[in-house]
């Protein structure tokens, strides 16, 4: 599987720091690994599966 990363969007810095669960990075990695390389994966596709959603993990958009 070939990944093509595109740095198209960042969130503006906001003052606060957050906790993430042990499993959150694993879910992100797993979703990238199993996404077809013709599709884009955004944090909105994953956020419901994470402890604090988009508040907890953010991103640049990237291809699967």
């Amino acid at each position, binding site marked *: 599987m070939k990944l093509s990363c595109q740095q198209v969007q960042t969130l503006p810095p906001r003052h606060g720091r957050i906790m993430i669960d042990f499993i959150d990075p694993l879910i992100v990695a*797993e979703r990238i690994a199993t996404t077809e390389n013709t599709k884009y994966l955004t944090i909105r596709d994953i956020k419901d599966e994470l402890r604090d959603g988009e508040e907890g993990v953010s991103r640049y958009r990237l291809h699967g």
Partner: protein
Amino acid sequence: MSKFKKGDIVGRISYNKDVLFEITKIIKTSNHKQIMILKGITERIEADSPEEDLEIMDKRIVQERMQKLEAQMLHRIEECVKDPKYCICEAKKIFGFRQERSNNVASTGRILHLDGDKRYSEKSMKYYRSLGLDAIVKNVPEYKQAQVVRSLLDRYEPDILVLTGHDGMIKKGTGFNDIYNYRNSRHFINTVNEARKWNSHGKDLAIFAGACQSYYEAIMSAGANFASSPR
């Protein structure tokens, strides 16, 4: 003589014992006091605390939290194996799904995961393996990850790099733009920089880096695609 020892599971009284920590190091100060270095057992956070603010947690509560973490992981695996894209799952056996030989061979991205916590490394490997993912997990302390990442990338040529461990702000609510106000963020940043140098050879690499309260802006600027974000 301290009532605490390395390995004890404790909670911080001033935080209503919201997070369970393991004592990983005990530092004696010049005024004969002791500062405990703590690592979260279900969250990826590192903190310190004077011993007066700590309380040993009841074994039953610790067990409940650990079981909750395990259940969360199993639930996630169970949900995933219902999805046909996970066609080579070890987990299908665990949950009694019928395994059939498929004509479709799914190729998933290869994951290289460096985790500063030994316990989390083992759990992560179990998770990836259960889902039949092509993953390599190495237990490497945060401060060493930058030194070893290039050789591991050369060796495994992954599509996805995950850099985790523990992190935390030293002075909370201030110094958001001071890299030295974060316990391990500088190590994650250095590792991402090293990984991106390797990446410049042509292979695309998706990077997740950071842990609780990490310096999100700097990690993303270094080239990570995902990081634990500011609220």
